[in-house]
Every structure is written in C-alpha cells, then in structure tokens.
C-alpha cells in the first residue's frame, strides 16, 4: 500500500512538471494555431538566463525566474514580429519548417555562447533536499513544481475563460476578420498571447530543470514529449493538457516502476490508444 502511494506521488509530481513545461505549447498550438516546434528552444533560453542570473550575477531563485521569463519574452518579441507573424494562418508545413529552423539556430547559438556543458539553476535552501511526507520522502522542488502547475492551470483558465482579454483572444482565433471588424485589435491580442506562451515556456524550462537539465540540445531532446502532451490533451484546452499530463505521468511512472525494461512502450501505447479514441485529444474541440 505504501508503494502505491509512493508511486502515485511520483506520478503526480512528474505529471505536473510535464504540465508546466508543455502548457505554453498548448496555448500556441490550440489558441494561436501555430505548430511551434521552437517551444523547447524558448524553454531552454529561459533556463539559460536563469542559470546565468543565478550563477554569474548572484541573484536569488525568485529574481532569476522573473528575469528569465522577462528576458525570454524580450528575446521573443523580434522573433514574433519578424518571423512568427508571417506564419499565422499559414499551412502547417510552413510553420513546422520555420519553427524547427529557429530551434536549430537557437541550439547553435546556445552551444556557441554557453558551451555544451550542463547548466544548473541553484535552488534556494527551502527547495533543496528531501521533505518527509510520512510514508516517504520527496524532493522539495517537486512539491514546488506541483504547486506551480496548480497555479499556472488556475491562472490560465481564469485569463482565457473569465477575462475580457480571453474573450477577445477566443474571438480572434475563431474568426480574425470578424473580430477585427468588431474592433478587436487582433495583432495586439496575438502579440500578447504569444508573449504569454513564451513566458510559460521559459517558466516551465526553469521549474522543470531539475528533471530535464539545461544543455544546448534541450530544445530538440524533449520536443516529442511536449507534442505528445498537447495532442493527447487537445490543443488549446487547459483542463485537457492537465488531464493528459496526469494520465501520461501515471502510466509512465507506473510502467517504469513495474517493468522498466519495457521502456516507453506503455507510454506510447497509451498515446496511440487515446489518439485513436479521441482524435482531437481528450478535451480538444472539434475542428
């Protein structure tokens, strides 16, 4: 019984880390309709800035996170203005080519500037080391990641479902011309949501860095995982992404505990089954 709880806790933690890292991509793919393969690249940029701010400039963890999120958004502004804006509404293949190109450029630049070694983001003492839960001990930073996941999910849901901005965003996505003629400044709406998505990517990169360490190939290494989460959850659906992460986290963790030699078999079996049963993802909208 203790083992069941224990594996369950691991599954929850892993699922939440997945959620925090992938949710930005769900926003770009579902709400902005851009297949953004550069998502991992932005997460990596966030990680690098946070690592640099903490190690070289001596800032604390919280400041490093803020700096990294702001810095990544700043870097993304010219990219959004000059590159992404050309591919809104373009065929998926064009989007894929453009964003994978950006990813390779970012990998090259990161390798050149920061070198190929692993970078860490030093955690504050509070998040370091194990915390005793009674039936087992768990890394404090995992609890932090779970909390981050809950907060991000709640905030995003509120922003998209309950605010005026959310209404404008959904309107722009569904029918940009109509929304524009009703006075919604779609360009600004797109720019802001792109910034939010990039900010989330950077935040996820930092919070998840303990599990997925920052190095130049980060951007490509975990791309499949991000895409799987989005397609299983249903692009653009926050509850869908959350559900997908929890389900996939549970399957992956349990599989790894019971039969590690099967590798990712159960993970991808689950993905195939879900995608067959729900072609639009668990909670995705019909197109």
């Amino acid at each position, binding site marked *: 019984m203790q083992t069941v709880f224990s594996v369950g806790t691991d599954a929850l933690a892993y699922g939440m880390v997945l959620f925090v890292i992938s949710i930005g991509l769900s926003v770009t793919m579902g709400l902005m309709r851009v297949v953004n393969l550069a998502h991992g690249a932005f997460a990596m940029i966030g990680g690098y800035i946070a690592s640099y701010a903490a190690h070289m400039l001596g800032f604390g963890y919280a400041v490093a996170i803020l700096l990294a999120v702001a810095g990544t958004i700043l870097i993304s502004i010219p990219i959004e203005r000059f590159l992404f804006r050309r591919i809104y509404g373009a065929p998926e293949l064009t989007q894929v080519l453009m964003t994978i190109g950006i990813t390779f450029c970012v990998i090259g630049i990161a390798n050149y500037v920061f070198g190929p070694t*692993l970078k860490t983001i030093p955690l504050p003492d509070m998040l370091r080391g194990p915390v005793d839960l009674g039936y087992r001990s768990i890394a404090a930073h995992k609890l932090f990641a779970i909390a981050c996941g809950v907060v991000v999910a709640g905030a995003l849901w509120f922003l998209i479902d309950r605010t005026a901005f959310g209404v404008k965003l959904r309107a722009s996505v569904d029918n940009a011309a109509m929304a524009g003629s009703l006075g919604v400044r779609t360009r600004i709406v797109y720019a802001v949501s792109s910034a939010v998505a990039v900010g989330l990517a950077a935040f996820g990169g930092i919070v998840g860095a303990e599990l997925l360490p920052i190095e130049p190939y980060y951007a490509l290494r975990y791309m499949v995982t991000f895409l799987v989460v989005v397609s299983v959850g249903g692009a653009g659906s926050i509850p869908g992404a959350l559900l997908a992460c929890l389900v996939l986290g549970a399957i992956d963790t349990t599989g790894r505990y019971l039969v*590690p030699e099967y*590798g*990712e078999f159960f993970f991808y079996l689950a993905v195939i089954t879900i995608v067959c049963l729900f072609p639009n993802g668990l909670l995705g909208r019909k197109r």
Partner: protein
Amino acid sequence: MKTILLSAVAAVALCGSAYADTIKIGVIGPFSGPFAIQGKNFKAGIDAYMALNGNKVGDNDIEIIYRDVPQADPAQSKALGQELVVKEGVQYLAGFYFTPDAMAVTPLLEQANVPLVVMNAATSAIVTKSPYVVRTSFTLWQTSAPMAKVAKERGVKKVITVVSDYGPGVDSEAAFTTTFKAEGGEIVDSIRMPLSTNDFSPIMQRVKDSGADAVFAFLPSGPTTLGFVKAYNDNGLKDAGIQLLAPGDLTQESDLPALGDSALGMLTTFHYAISHDSPENKIFVEAARKAIGNPAELSFPSVGAYDGMHVIYKMIEATGGEQDAQKAVDAVKGMAWESPRGPVSIDPETRHITQNIYLREVAKAEDGSYINKEIATFEKQGDPGLAAAK
C-alpha cells in the same frame, strides 16, 4: 560501382607510400551535435600531443583530417572512412566515440592497409573484428569489474544493478554481476531502463524496495546522469545508507560542476581522472586545457586521443612513413609507456590497452572545484570482457 571503389582502395593502398612526405591521419568523431563535447575532447587530446611532441615524425609531416559523425551512425561512419582512405589517402584511421561507428569501419582496414586506433568506443568486441585495430581507451568490463571488488571489500552483501538499456549498459551490468557473484556477493535485482528516462524516482523506489545495501549504476555521461544522481539524493537513498557505485562515466569532469554537492562522496571506478597526480598528467592537462579553450570542458576522451596519437607516432616511426598496416600494428604490440593516466601498455594478444583502474571519490578541491579524487588503485587491468565473450 563497387568494383571501381575497391580497385580505387587497392590502388591507393599500393601507391600510398610513394608520396610519403605528409602522412595523413583521419579522425572520425562527434564534432557537432549533442556529443560535440566528446569530439572536442578528441581534438584537445590530439592538439595537446602535437603541441608537446611536434607535428613531425622523422622527416614526415603529420596532418590530421577530421570527419564529423554527430550521433552513432554506422553507415555514415563507413562512408566517411572510405572517403578518408580513397580520396584523402590517409594512412591511419583514429577517433570513434561510438562502438557501432568503429565496428562499421573495421571491414575496410585489411583491404585499405590502414590501422585503426580506437580513442574511445568501449565495447570489448571491437578489437576482435580486425587484426589492425588497436584501442587506447577502456572497456566497460575493464572499468566496472573492479567496482565489484570494492563493494565486497566494503562489506556490501546485496546489490541491485540499474543500467541504461543499450550495449555499454548491458556490458557494465554483466561485468559487475559476474565479478560480484564470483566474489560471493548477491545480486537482488537487475533493472534496465530506457535511454530516454528522465524521471528516476520510480527507479529509486524499486531500489529502496529491493532491500539492497548498494546500487550499481551505469548511464552514459551527459544530461541524464544529473537527474539520476539528484533522484538518488532526493528520494532519501543516500540518507538510508544505500551506497551508489558506478563506473566513472557518471562523474565525468565536465558534468561535475552541474552535479555539485549532490555527488560528493560518490564512488566510481575509472581509468582516468583529470586530477591524477603525476608529472606527466600535469603537462598533459595544461596543454589540453589550452587546446580546448574552456578548462571545464576537459574530460576523459581527451586522454584516449592523446595516447592514441602516441601509438600512431610510434607506428609511423616504426614504418618510416611507409604504408604497412601489419608492420605498424606489430610495432606497438607490447609497447609500454607512461601515460597521463599512469603506466599503460598495449596487450600483444588483444591489442587493447592494459592500464590501472582507480577507485575515486567525488571531492571538493582546495579551489572549490569538484574532482574525482583517486583513493585506491587496481594495477595492470586487462579487459576481462574479451575472456568472458569467448
């Protein structure tokens, strides 16, 4: 097409010695991509050797030609090997970070009359594939088997092994398991995990549930080792007194700054530590750090490359610049020298390097950097893997 290619190989092989003023050495390794740091280390080792020993052997100038295979890719490796031999006219092939890449080139050697010096690829069987293969790195059998003896000496009775599920991981598991059982120890469970694993908590739970006194682990050096060592600490295994034992791939020097305090006290067995205390090593490290640029990036493949160059220089000296693979390989059989890693020799039977394996502990140096501190030595270790395969 194939006949043309083969006759071209033969033609080059026959007239290769005619213009012997510049001797070309073809080096294949990962110089871009996720493993670029290992290729950089090859280059640093080679550059360091040439900086210290000159770029001439006798009257012959030495020229190195690099070819990039970013990830394990046997087909590309073979194509590049062929190109180096046929178009560039190299007299020696060297490098090779991955086993499959080295294996793919071995069928070319006899026909091309070219020796191959393996500077890293660590599966035992490579040297059996051609009589022209010499290896100056290590094998996982060589580095993992002494750890079983360490475990026994330290009173560990029950061990669980956890390895990445691919060739070297399986080798490492077999080496440890065989030796530990021979020493009278018990293996309670053996876990093989996929290479792509990034959350190790469930694995640590398995380790905990198995009731073992120690866990023997192998993962390839790089990003995943960080997650593994952290999970080991965070899941309370360290506090529970379950020892973590591993070959030195887990604590390669270029990963140590990232591992930091969480790796302190970890025990590994390996053939080379940058902190190795000898005059030869001081000279090597200084030259190699200069060559690589960023001292933090220096790691074990550099020493394999450095000694590989030593072997090739000896081959060139013995053949006087003539292209004669058999003579070249014969010249280095039994050759012994003082490497930066300690005393080494080329086993005349296997053509694999015989060397000391060191037990090391991750420690903090006086300047605050992390090092693999050598605390015990297993002298003159051959490759038990070849014996086991027979």
